[in-house]
């Protein structure tokens, strides 16, 4: 027990921690946040942190709120102030905080501008465009000769190129490799090396950031780390401020993040790292390294206290997850990938646990094969109404890719089934971007009837179907509608003035006139702030728009003539891509699934979440490959043998730095890494479900094939069902 709470034995062991390095490998649903929160509260209450505070580092904004709420509640129960004795930060907020203390030591301004992903990509794309202007044919020379004249392929390659460069840049920064020294070595690379353009763009991108007085998120970590390494007095002071460092989701840590937190804790310090190596699903597209946490757990000086009990899922689902883990480790067809999952068995909680495992009657796991993707989707759509009808029952449908999720969402829309998508760009952002973008486009081109029509439709959706309004729009010049030269009682001409939406449209037309006056008298950033008030936005939407306004202000300093005409497209992009600030405001309250609505998302985005019923879709070889010979989504076949240019570039980089001998190009290791990660992704999918689990795949007859993992699960489900029936 701890302060009235009943902790499971694994949690109690964690809460008993007194110091040193502690690793807490935790299975899904093990209550690691609870354990860490109790530990923090106990240390604070017992005076274990002195005048310092516990630093809790998490990788998601939802985690920040979660921890703060949990620790605060526990402290209050002990009669202590809820907000003292600890700080909860995302890793990037922590790095920013460190840098703000001594920016001048890194030759940074006192408030360096930290670029959101949208702005970073904006600058990177600008540099790519500049590079391409200086090297007009180079890009196309990477293509296989047979497709060089194919315009569609060229377009796809041009679209993919900046993203690949971004990955190389991120890789370099994660390994603290500065741009200029690398660019100086470009002459040692062959003319057809992909690393060459990547490094040239990297150097230009870095120079551009510096001229902006800006840092991207990777820079934050590099600078914070270098600052701590170079300033021992400063580091010591921070160690006194934070005598305990807790890291959540440690399996998603990158080498630099791990070094940063280890440096903060100090070799004799107190570092608690919680994670689940079996849920490391970020490494193929970020700098996360799943082996880091594994290696940490195996260090001799690190105490390990595992959390194996989980009350999230039913026994059957737990058994399936454990079976899957064993199959991977013992039977996976590609032996090199058998280490994808750690030997980590999920145990159900004790029967008298206050939060026991769900225990639905019967066996609630199904697998099924379909002739096509559309058949699979149609089948699931058909089953959803019944699932939604169960009171207080939550439902999710998970896909391997965003596009599949979006297709499914459109299908639900057509069938009138209530749903919510969990995508990178949140629905709120999409709505804000679209509505605001349309309004700004109109304000920038007030003479344009179509722009006026879209702006009105964005604010009064029914106007699109109002014949009288549409006729008025066609017949009346915008200036006459908005600012009639002759005085008249209303703005709308007959018959729109008598239509069902007349009052609403009349008011809107007048407001549009007022907003036009604002738009053509205020600077662009001030206009956005004013519109945030005029549109009476929700607090979170207003916060996003405020951040966008600050970014526009920054762009104004660079492009003083930036005006309304350029504003609309830029604001759309900024709102859609406002990753950091959107995560900070929209995700802060955490995720609480609601009954009566279907959640549609990807496996990746589902991590950390849970629902009563989960549908895992499209478990095919293409997305869950079994061997390196299978074509994978990230393969750029149009590049021929160098279908993974980013990986090849990394190997070339290692060779350039003298760390690796560049032999025959062998992408097997790259593919094996992806296979491992997809296996973990599937494990994550399975462990999202509490009671009911559905697994679907498409039959080989149509060119796709169910993955080997699916087949193994299918077999297990068949036997599990038999076991269940026998048990019954």
């Amino acid at each position: 027990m701890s302060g009235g709470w009943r902790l499971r034995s694994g949690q109690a062991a964690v809460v008993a921690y007194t110091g040193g390095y502690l690793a807490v490998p935790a299975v899904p649903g093990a209550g690691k946040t609870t354990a860490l929160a109790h530990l923090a509260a106990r240390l604070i209450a017992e005076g274990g942190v002195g005048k310092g505070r516990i630093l809790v580092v998490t990788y998601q904004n939802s985690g920040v709120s979660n921890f703060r709420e949990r620790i605060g509640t526990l402290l209050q129960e002990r009669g202590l102030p809820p907000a003292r004795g600890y700080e909860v930060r995302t890793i990037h907020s922590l790095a920013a905080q460190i840098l703000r203390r001594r920016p001048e030591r890194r030759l940074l301004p006192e408030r360096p501008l930290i670029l959101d992903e949208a702005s970073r990509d904006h600058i990177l794309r600008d540099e790519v465009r500049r590079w391409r202007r200086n090297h007009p044919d180079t890009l196309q020379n990477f293509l296989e000769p047979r497709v060089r004249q194919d315009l569609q392929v060229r377009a796809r390659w041009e679209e993919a190129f900046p993203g690949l460069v971004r990955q190389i840049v991120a890789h370099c920064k994660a390994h603290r490799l500065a741009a200029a020294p690398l660019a100086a070595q470009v002459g040692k690379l062959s003319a057809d090396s992909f690393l060459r353009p990547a490094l040239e763009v990297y150097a230009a991108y870095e120079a551009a950031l510096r001229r902006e007085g800006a840092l991207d998120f990777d820079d934050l970590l590099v600078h914070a780390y270098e600052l701590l390494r170079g300033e021992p007095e400063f580091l010591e002071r921070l160690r006194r401020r934070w005598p305990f460092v807790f890291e959540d989701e440690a399996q998603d840590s990158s080498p630099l993040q791990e070094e940063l937190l280890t440096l903060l804790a100090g070799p004799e310090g107190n570092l608690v790292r919680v994670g689940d190596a079996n849920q490391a699903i970020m490494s193929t597209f970020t700098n996360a390294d799943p082996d880091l946490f594994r290696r940490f757990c195996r260090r001799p000086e690190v105490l390990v206290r595992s959390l194996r009990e989980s009350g999230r899922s039913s026994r059957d689902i737990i058994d399936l997850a454990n079976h899957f883990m064993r199959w991977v480790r013992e039977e996976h067809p590609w032996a090199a990938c058998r280490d994808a999952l750690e030997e980590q068995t999920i145990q159900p909680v004790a029967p008298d646990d206050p939060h026991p495992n769900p225990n639905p009657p019967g066996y609630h796991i199904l697998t099924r094969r379909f002739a096509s993707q559309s058949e699979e989707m149609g089948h699931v759509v058909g089953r959803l109404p019944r699932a939604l009808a169960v009171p207080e029952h939550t439902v999710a449908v998970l896909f391997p890719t965003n596009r599949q999720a979006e297709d499914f969402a459109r299908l639900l829309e057509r069938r009138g089934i209530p749903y919510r998508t969990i995508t990178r760009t949140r629905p709120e952002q999409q709505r804000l971007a679209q509505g605001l973008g349309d309004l700004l486009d109109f304000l920038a081109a007030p003479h344009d009837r179509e722009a006026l029509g879209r702006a009105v439709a964005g604010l009064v959706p029914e106007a699109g179907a109002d014949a009288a309004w549409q006729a008025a729009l066609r017949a009346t010049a915008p200036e006459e509608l908005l600012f009639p030269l002759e005085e008249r009682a209303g703005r709308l001409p007959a018959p729109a003035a008598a239509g069902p939406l007349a009052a609403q449209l009349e008011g809107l037309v007048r407001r549009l006139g007022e907003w036009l006056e604002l738009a053509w008298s205020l600077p662009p950033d001030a206009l956005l702030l004013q519109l945030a008030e005029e549109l009476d936005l929700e607090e979170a939407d207003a916060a996003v728009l405020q951040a966008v306004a600050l970014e526009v202000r920054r762009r104004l300093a660079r492009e003083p003539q930036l005006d309304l005409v350029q504003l609309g497209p830029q604001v759309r992009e900024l709102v859609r891509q406002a990753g950091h600030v959107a995560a900070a405001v929209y995700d802060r309250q955490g995720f609480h699934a609601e009954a009566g609505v279907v959640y549609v998302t990807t496996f990746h985005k589902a991590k950390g979440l849970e629902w009563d019923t989960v549908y895992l879709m499209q478990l095919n070889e293409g997305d869950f490959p079994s061997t390196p010979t299978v074509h994978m989504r990230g393969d750029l076949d149009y590049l021929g043998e160098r279908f993974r240019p980013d990986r090849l570039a990394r190997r070339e980089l290692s060779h350039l730095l003298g760390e690796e001998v560049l032999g025959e190009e062998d992408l097997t290791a790259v593919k094996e890494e992806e296979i491992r990660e997809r296996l973990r992704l599937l494990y994550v999918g399975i462990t999202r479900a509490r009671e009911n689990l559905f697994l679907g795949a498409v039959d080989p007859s149509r060119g796709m094939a169910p993955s080997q993992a699916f087949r193994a699960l299918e077999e297990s489900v068949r036997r599990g069902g038999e076991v269940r029936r026998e048990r019954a």
Partner: protein
Amino acid sequence: MNDTVERKASSRRLAVGPTGSGRTTWLQERYRELLADGVSSSTVLVLVAHAARVGEWRDTLGEPAAAGLSIYTFNGWAQRELRRHWPRLGRGGPEPHFLTADVAQFLMERRVRQALERGELAELTATPQRTALLLEGNLGVIAAAAGVPPEELPARMAGGVGAKESSVFVQAAALLEGYHAALSQAQVLDYGLCLALYRELLRDPAYGEFLAGELRYILVDDLDETLPLAQELIELLMGRLEGGFLTYNTDGGHTRFQGADPEGAWRRFAPLCAQVPLEGCRTATPQLAEFGQALFRRLMGEEVTRLFPLEDIRTEFRGEMLRQVVETLRRELAAGAVPGELAVVAPAVDPVLEHTIAGGLAREGVGLINLTRSRRLRDEPYALALVSLLLLANPAWGLAPSVGEMTHTFRLLLDLDPVRGFLLGRAVAGSFPGALPDLAERGLLPRVGFAKGEAYRRVAEWLTARRAEELPVDVFCHRAFGELLAPLEPAQDHLVYCRQVIQSAARFRSVAQVLPELGGAPVGRQFAELVRGGTVAAEPLIARPEDDRRVLLATPYAYLAAGAVSRVQVWVDLDAAQWLRGDAKELVNPRTCTPAHPADLAWTDAEEEAVRLENAARTVRALARRCTDRLIVAGSLLDSRGFEQDGELAEALQEVAG
């Protein structure tokens, strides 16, 4: 210390006291005593710390007391003296040209951009604008004020950030030196050169004789804010004149980051003068004065022994915090507060903050005055119209006006709604650099309206006529204002900004005539680039904060520099790191840029941390001592970009407030 000074110590007094203790009043009383003793006002020199104090002194003293009295900031004094004694310096030319800060920034920024293109300054993460400001506005001034020779700068810059001397510091120092050399050659002076030359003047014994013949007394307010060079002047005068009266604010030293040396001032003058301790606080309640002291002690690491409950606004999002601040201000106004009694103090004023507060107050019919120079002159509609007309009249410059600029301009000139203004603006922008469009030919006349069409035709004719002339830029702006804008009967604010454009243009032209690096392109074109580029800030329109009927918005420094006192202060963004800021910047650390600091000694982290805490402690204490009724504090977990904030000041306040 020389014997002459020692002998005269009894006629030298130094009033020492914290904020609100009446130091300025004491000094003004000393002046009145001098007048009563028959001393002529023209033989008294008064030095004040900020330009705003000059007018305040004159207003307080009134006539005839202020008649003939020389009241200057040290900058103003140095400029005056350089003009008067220019021949003595043997630099050639009848007189120097003084650069305004904006033009100085513009010139240095160009050099910085050129350096960046050469691959220099690669290690810096800074906009060219910031680098220019650090070099020209900070380093150049601080080094000149302290008498640091240029060859020592790279080592001192490196030491200032605890780094080894590297190419970036050498390049930056060389940039500054090259810039000053070019200006010097043309007898053009920025503030740094002004100080360097004034130092030369001070070294001239004949100049000292001259001053001793002209003056009898020196009065200096806020000695703690004086530069080392100003202290040299004061020390010279204290030794040569009949007497001197000085004040020292024990809460002060807020301009160290600009080179002020309060410790040096104390070391120089405390032994020379009879000290007059001033106590009490006339600008705060005893409770707030005590609170300020308690917060000071807490930030300096002492224990909190007494609690001072405060009204506290705490939110998650910054926007929500600002809305609650607006509600608080509304509540105060509804309870009878006069707007000028209320002040919002923020460590940095950004558009979100200003817009939210201003918008909220505007709905109550109350204005907000922002003391921070954050608006661009090009955002002022009349200013933008003048510059846009300049571009239209000079197509040969190749600076195409944007559709936005043309829409703004013609809306203003012809009083057009936004749609018709856009139609016209687009047509005009599209026709550039050719002749202005004929509206009838473009089919725009029915859409714009015939009356407006006629008005447009007159403007077009006016511009066509100007295209045939080659008017100097300031002359053109003057004519454009007089013939096109003045008939619109602009409000007072707009008139001020038009005047600012015309005066800036005139000053720019006079400097361009002597400075070769401005000779490459037409002067008017460069001026237009200067304004369009956003370099020129719109001057804040305020004379004295206490007379204003608007709520005040300011950073702590701007608030204290303005000498503001408020009945209610609201400190916002309490969790922001900027409340605790050190003096060291990436290219300049005033603590190492002084002969008193060994050139090769690195500034340590412990020293900078001490400075950070001490700066914050002094600032909040001084602010609290300028509040006569209540203090309200507000903070948010997240800043406007979604990052969690530090909360150091908030933590300290929490302990003090209980």
